[in-house]
């Protein structure tokens, strides 16, 4: 039923999921309670890694899109599409966890804060990419159009990252990458760094696995099309 390759992929996926579970264990039992926010701040250990994974996905999307333009290959497009799907997933997770965190700390589920708005924008852009992919007939035209959009989306990401410092905003300024070093407790910082690494690894596995599925679906579609017309 399963090929050796399938088993290897599933083993890797299970391994990364276990790492994510270990990180959550550390987030709940290793990291100390925050002096100001109490226990509620622990959602940060899912929120921040999700946000960084969502932003990193846009960089990966730009890389796969550039490769797609250079090589004109459907396999690069499959990787780019899988990246957009995973990017959308983590952007939605970022928005959801941010909203849940915002209720007790800001007193509202949603506000048109700069970073929330621009992250919402990123979700719309990933959705637009997936819509463009499904609206184009398969072929080199789709590879090129989607690749160009992938690069355009990446051009939008710096404004999202810098939005917190450009606008007056409710969102806290960057706590890790700032002049003068991080402001947080070392235990919290390490738990967060491990969380980011773990989630990025899991996301890269998801992209690899999903792109294989997309290629398989495309091959099946092409084969059934040929069979219909033979």
């Amino acid at each position: 039923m399963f090929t050796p390759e399938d088993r290897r992929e599933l083993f890797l996926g299970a391994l990364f999921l276990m790492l994510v579970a270990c990180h959550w264990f550390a987030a709940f039992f290793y990291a100390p309670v925050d002096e100001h926010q109490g226990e509620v701040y622990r959602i940060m250990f899912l929120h921040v890694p999700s946000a960084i994974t969502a932003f990193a996905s846009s960089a990966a999307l730009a890389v796969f899109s550039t490769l797609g333009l250079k090589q004109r290959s459907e396999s690069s497009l499959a990787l780019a599409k899988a990246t957009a799907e995973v990017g959308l997933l983590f952007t939605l997770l970022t928005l959801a966890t941010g909203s849940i965190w915002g209720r007790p700390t800001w007193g509202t589920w949603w506000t048109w804060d700069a970073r929330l708005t621009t992250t919402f924008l990123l979700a719309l852009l990933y959705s637009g990419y997936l819509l463009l992919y499904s609206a184009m007939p398969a072929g080199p035209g789709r590879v090129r159009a989607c690749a160009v959009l992938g690069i355009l989306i990446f051009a939008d990401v710096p404004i999202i990252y810098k939005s917190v410092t450009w606008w007056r905003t409710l969102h806290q300024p960057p706590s890790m990458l700032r002049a003068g070093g991080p402001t947080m407790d070392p235990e919290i910082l390490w738990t967060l760094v491990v969380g980011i690494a773990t989630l990025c690894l899991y996301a890269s596995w998801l992209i690899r696995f999903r792109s294989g599925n997309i290629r398989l679906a495309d091959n099946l579609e092409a084969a059934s099309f040929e069979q219909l017309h033979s």
Partner: protein
Amino acid sequence: MRSSLWRDYRTLVGQGVKAELADLERLVSPVLFALTMLLMFAFAIGDVEPSLRLRIYLAETFLTALFALQISFSRVFEPDRQDRVFDLMRTYPIDHTGWFLAKYTMVLLLGVATLGPILFFGAFVNQTPSQSLFSWLVVGIAAMALAGLAALGVLLAAMTLKANARQILYPLLYFPLATPVLLAAVQASQLYLGSGQISPDVRAWLGLLLGFDVIYITLGLLLFTELVDES
């Protein structure tokens, strides 16, 4: 190479202008749409305090311009779609940079024809006895915004040319990507009209606007060839 670029550019712009003038409805309809939208905004917002007038003027004027420009931009390849002109042009040895610049120029001309009446009419209907809202600097900011949006508009029009349901797909892609430009233009205009001087904050927003103009025009020049390449 350079002579072929400018020759192709001049030819394509000339043909584009002729096509637009032959079909004036395409030129006039975005302007009429914009004026209708300003009227709808006036009904929806109603009478407001004079202190809010400036913010409302800028919000409704730039939003209306964004919607109207989207209509103009999305139709920039419409003349080329007839009789498969677009597909034929892809097979001709024309300079793709010249082709992009010609379309960009056409979109700029259409944009100026649309933006001018919107800015003038918007300032006219929102003015108060104590404050005139028309400003040449705001016109300049709008022109800077148009420079970036036009490049984005041409790229997206070429990108969605072969897509199904492109009437809905185009705005779905255009509005999120146009947001940084819109935001910078509105913020710079608001700060300038509020204080009457070009403060460091105004300069910062203008810098962002210029940055996005450079990004979108550069990406347009680099990527348009990829979109129309036949290979």
